[in-house]
């Protein structure tokens, strides 16, 4: 077994959620209107409760890696 053979992606699901939130934020940042509201609405509509809880917890713990708009969007989540 070569070393590179096992060299595959090993991100945690929290890291993935941050990437996803930032991607969403990047889109809404380009749109006219309130970008954070757009992010919040999108996440509320498509993320399951556990994912939402995780990202909120992550944001609450400092939100490492979260873009500002993503942070604002997560903060705007109502549930």
């Amino acid at each position, binding site marked *: 077994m070569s070393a590179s053979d096992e060299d595959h*992606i090993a991100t945690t699901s929290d890291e993935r959620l941050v990437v996803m939130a930032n991607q969403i934020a990047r889109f809404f940042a*380009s749109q006219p209107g309130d970008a954070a509201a757009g992010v919040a609405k999108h996440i509320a509509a498509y993320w399951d409760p556990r994912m939402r809880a995780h990202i909120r917890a992550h944001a609450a713990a400092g939100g490492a890696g979260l873009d500002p708009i993503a942070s604002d969007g997560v903060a705007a989540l109502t549930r």
Partner: protein
Amino acid sequence: MPMIKLIDYGTPDAASDMTVTLTIDGREISVAAGTSIMRAAALAGTEIPKLCATDSLEAFGSCRLCLVEIDGRAGTPASCTTPAAEGMVVRTQTETLKRLRNGVMELYISDHPLDCLTCAANGDCELQDMAGAVGLREVRYGYDGENHLAEAKDESNPYFTFDPAKCIVCSRCVRACDEVQGTFALTIAGRGFGSKVSPGQGQPFMDSDCVSCGACVQACPTATLIEKSLIEIGQPERSVVTTCAYCGVGCTFEAQMRGEQVVRMIPYKDGKANQGHSCVKGRFAWGYATHRERILNPMIRDTITDPWREVAWNEAIAHTTQAFKRIQERHGRLAVGAITSSRCTNEETFLVQKLVRAGYGNNNVDTCARVCHSPTGYGLRTTYGTSAGTQDFISVDQADVIVIIGANPTDGHPVFASRMKQRLRAGAHLIVIDPRRIDLVRTPHVEADFHLPLRPGTNVAVLTAMAHVIVTEDLANEDFIRDRCDADEFHDWAAFVARPEHSPEAIEATCGVPAGDLRAAGRLYATGGNGAIYYGLGVTEHSQGTTAVMAIANLAMVTGNIGREGVGVNPLRGQNNVQGACDMGSFPHELSGYRHISDEATRSMFEADWGVALDDEPGLRIPNMLDAAVDGVFKALYIQGEDILQSDPNTHHVSAGLAAMECVVVQDLFLNETANYAHVFLPGSTFLEKDGTFTNAERRIQRVRKVMTPKNGYGDWEITQLLANAMGLGWAYDHPSQIMDEIARLTPTFAGVSFARLDELGSIQWPCNDAAPQGTPVMHIGGFARGKGKFVVTEYVPTDEKIGPRFPLLLTTGRILSQYNVGAQTRRTANVVWHDQDVLEIHPTDAEDRGVREGDLVRLNSRAGEVALHARITDRVAPGVVYTTFHHPDTQANVITTDYSDWATNCPEYKVTAVQVSLANGPTGWQRRSGELSHQSRRIMREPAE
């Protein structure tokens, strides 16, 4: 059900609003202007003898059997090539004509083997029929003259034989290959008596350009080109019309049966999607249904390293139900879920999502559309209001400029590609936007005006640059925009695309497409008449897949190319029922008809109908399920007709997720790769074994009809019902039509759909309701489903997947004509003769840099993993780009792809992976281990027979 007999009218329908009235054999008949006398006669119930004419092909006039007499005209014109005219008086039966036809038949039979009794076409041979029809009683020439009886048979094609000894040189096969299929693989070689049908330049069929679509076999009036299955089994005794279970074109076939055996699948002339055409998959590759590797008994095992143990159905169902109940008790309501299949029927898909929502009590249901066209749903819903393509297929006949983006129709959607090629040969312009030089860029009598070979991942930049050209060069359709679109959104968008950084000149360096070509393509689309965009997974499977779909929607709106025939935005759907699976509420956030689960009114309608309370929170998508499994909170998954291990990206991650679950239930025809991680295997049924409906890429709902009893005992819908009832849901569907009735009752866009209505109309394109009782072929006529069309700003965001010194090449993936998706079906047919392994296409320069020669085994690695496969050196791919398919489990191309995905839908970024290629000396460790696991997982302990 007896054999279906369709009338062959001899020549195609003449599309004309004007009518002419003529008299044929004393009977007056009115027909559309331009109709041939032959067709007019057939419409009047008179069959004029014919051999070279068939209504799928233009009249040719070569057999000379259909000659008639016309008052006031000299000679005996051919009825197939002579158009009916006002006041014409035609006689089809006279002494002169009888003598003439007899003379022609006498000539034919003088060069034809007299082996009718042992001929495979006996009873279904037009030559035989015509000899009878003209009353041929003797062949005075004898049989010792010059002839073709000793010509050698060509049996090279796995599905049909070519016996030139039986050929009557009517050219129907050649014309079908040219006119219908557009491959131009056949010709008539030689001349005069020496004329013969020749694949390529006198080559065997398999060495020619033949794509084995079957059009020639279908067109042949004798046993010259005939299915091997027919030769083996004999003439069919009954036939049933059904829908193909391969790609999203949704071809209608007549399954011709002998007892429980399929004799052949014949493309159905009245099928709205295919109009009598077919491809090598639907036409011939159905043998998997009886393949020896098909699993027919339920099986269970405690751990994925155990061998399988065959059990009775009740035991398997009880075992599964107990496991799911136990897991939910221990890990919570949200710890289980299901994946519906785009391969199964609408009714089956609907039941699986119903099982999850009503039985599991959560919304953890997703479908394989997640990994293909989910961005289409999101993008088109946002801009237009409906998650579907806007046109029917025949709309392409009216298109003047065809734009193909990230799709390879001749391989992926061959029957529609043939139709598109007909239009292109008739003069429509073509723009291809694809990193790879797909066949349509240059194919016989078709050449793209522009091929924009963009760098993978730059769709949004290219599409926005085209919009820039249209807006800044004043090519926008202002009337359309004013009447049909939201003005503020348009102005925001127009200001955005007009920025200098979106000009072709500014974008050129990013996308690699010359600015001049980008400008010219934008102008052509905007000004060339009806512009129709067709796109595929090359658009959606990107981190900006949804944005690209919206950019396409913007282009159609800014040019007014929406809301009529010949235009539109047309996603080419990968699997047979991708559209349907999405329509049926397979996504975790929405119920059937694309209504969000949080919508109180919709939810309460379902709650009332189903008698349960529904969770109002969106559930997990497939990648989220796998993440949750790795996290240890998602424990059981019911997968109907999907092989996520092979088809989903980043195989390592998928396998880790599956391995982390306590109960994986796979319902499939074969022990697929996902089943290596399964604890329960429920044998599924093929499309031949059940009733239901599929919905194709045109939103066309079509019947799937049962032609044989399920070899596994149950249709897939029945298996889901067994699971539901074991959970105490008390379902009592006797027939899938009742499920459709429920769908119609609960889904406004399906309100007018029922099996009875489908049987009556043949097919229905949704929306079908009181507002559109016949269905809706073209959408957004007069107004968008959402009201005003919405322009969306589409900022180009480069993917995070970037090339660098370690991974300097970009891998993009696709499919090939003969294989389908993960190949579970096609690999178990003779289609493997065309494609027995996945190969890596690499540009000669890149190959040379790496010392790679044609056919070398190479190691392809990305940051996700590595596989070994053989190299094919070709300039179809640009330097810096490599390409492969994902049909073969021993390649496992998805080991390479990453977990990057679309920002809106999590559709994986299959189309862009940074990779390196180097010479290899054998399979990779993963390939070896996965091979071992597959081998282990195919061990079955059979119960001794009772």
